[in-house]
């Protein structure tokens, strides 16, 4: 019971510090902006640890963070193998193929008004469907290896990427297009100098959405069958063995890779679309 009391105390302290910081004189500095969510996260973790220990929740239901950390550190090589299998082989290759194919399709579609008017509503429709449901079929076709995971990822990222790129390529004003006309620019010239740069914010939006979808696709596809490796496989088998520490470690790996993946794309976006209204306010 004392541990639970400690948890309440910890919460009070963490919350108090955050209230002070958030309303204090330094509230708009970068350090505070970083510190407040970190303190919040640390408080949550601490309370989790204390309450789970204090009320003696069985570890098969909710393990304390310390046990998860121990399991994570103790199984680094296994988790690294799972990471390469799911993220690098399954998700990343599917992501590159899917986004690349969608981009090329968008360029093709862009040349024909008929195709654009046909594909855009269809693509919007497809992007809203639970495409992850094709996983059992694709696992059946491409086997248990990473190829079937990549195939699921390709299908999942293709339509959001296509829709965003097509929308981006038509995101030029009439005036900008007229300007290109007065220069008698060719299709390729106006694509390269005007429409591709103007489409970049949309393309990156598609890439960001797709980065999350890619991980979902790769992990869920493993629930339908995989070699004895991979994050989805690790999660479903470790649950069967009631090894919750391992389950949480695998979840931690997928969360970290998801955030890192997204972060990398967002970083590239920031460097390439520095000129866009959403960024230039800050400088």
């Amino acid at each position: 019971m004392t541990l639970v009391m400690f948890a309440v105390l910890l919460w009070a302290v963490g919350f108090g510090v955050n209230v002070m910081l958030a309303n204090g004189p330094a509230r708009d500095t970068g350090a505070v902006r970083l510190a407040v969510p970190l303190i919040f996260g640390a408080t949550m973790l601490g309370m989790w640890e204390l309450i789970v220990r204090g009320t003696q929740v069985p570890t098969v239901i909710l393990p304390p963070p310390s046990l998860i950390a121990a399991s994570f550190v103790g199984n680094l090589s296994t988790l690294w193998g799972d990471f390469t299998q799911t993220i690098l082989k399954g998700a990343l290759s599917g992501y590159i193929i899917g986004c690349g194919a969608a981009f090329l399709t968008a360029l093709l579609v862009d040349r024909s008004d008929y195709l654009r008017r046909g594909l855009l509503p269809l693509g919007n429709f497809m992007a809203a469907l639970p495409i992850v449901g094709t996983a059992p079929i694709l696992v059946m076709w491409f086997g248990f290896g990473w190829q079937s995971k990549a195939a699921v990822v390709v299908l999942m990222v293709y339509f959001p990427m296509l829709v965003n790129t097509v929308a981006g390529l038509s995101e030029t004003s009439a005036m900008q297009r007229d300007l290109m006309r007065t220069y008698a620019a060719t299709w390729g010239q106006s694509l390269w100098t005007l429409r591709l740069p103007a489409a970049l914010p949309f393309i990156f939006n598609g890439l960001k959405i797709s980065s999350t979808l890619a991980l979902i696709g790769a992990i869920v596809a493993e629930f339908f069958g995989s070699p004895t490796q991979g994050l989805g496989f690790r999660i479903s088998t470790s649950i069967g063995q009631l090894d919750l520490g391992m389950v949480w470690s695998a979840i931690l790996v997928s969360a970290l890779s998801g955030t890192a993946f997204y972060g990398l794309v967002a970083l590239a976006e920031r460097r390439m679309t520095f000129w866009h209204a959403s960024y230039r306010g800050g400088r």
Partner: protein
Amino acid sequence: MSEDTLGKKSRGKSGTGWPRWLRLPPVLGMVLALFALWYVAVVPMNVKEVLTAAERAGVAVSPPSAVERRDMGNWALVMRNTHALGDSWSSDRPKLPAPHQVLVELYDSTIDEELNGRRGIVKSGTLSNRSLVYHAIVTLNATFLGFVIGTVLGCALAVGIVHSRVMDMSVMPWAIVSQTIPIVALAPMIIVVLYSIGVQGLIPKAVISAYLSFFPVVVGMVKGLRSPDAMQMDLMRTYSAPTTAVLWKLRLPASVPYLFASLKIAIAASLVGAIVGELPVQKGGLGARMLAGSYYGQTAQIWAALLVAAGLAAVLVWATGWMERRTLRKMGAKP
């Protein structure tokens, strides 16, 4: 004349400026092209099984041994055996069923099962557990419950974030980060852990759905509640309006377009959550049907379940969009 009409004339991008009847033919064309592609793809996908069956029926096949055929490319086999491919679109256990086979399976497992099946609604008075109607309703229940929970909690948290600086600074970054992680990875664990403490059936699936729909709503609603501009907020300040009045009369109405935009994402995510949540337990639902189909190699069954899931998603998103249009029109937005 010139300035105004020119603007309108050249603004017809992404087909939005086209009248409804002109928008349909290209879409129909694409759909037809897709089906044609599907029918063509059926031939190479199923060629090995079809040739084996043809060989058994006594048709000359080249090369004659199944072992040799196994190592050959599908297209090469198609080219060499054009005379023996008649059964491509009607084989028993196809790798890729033809569209009409999926439709037949869909009919058999919905209308036919309910009307004529022993366990169907006509003969037994309850929906058959072998029919997709039953499974779709199971999935839909979890979807709706999760969607409602996720939306309500999401709106509540968003209101808190907008009104409390501490909550904004401490919770918002985590809400944004959580959108970048594959939350479905949690699904099997949630199911099993809840099962082990005695909660099963609808609730665990709804929890996953709620979890998936929660974060888009939070992020969208925070944006929406903050959308009133400085002038509109200043107007409220000149009335010295209390916080609740600002919330009800300005922030909430202003957030409606953002709310619906997130609801469309949330309902689709809810459905995915419910389907994925059905994978580990196998107690009904479209997800369970898909997994069962994949265990027993019943491709048509998977495709039929997939089709129903796609239909559900389409209807749900469309219904949300319809409500959006209705609500916004009532609130005086331009149609």
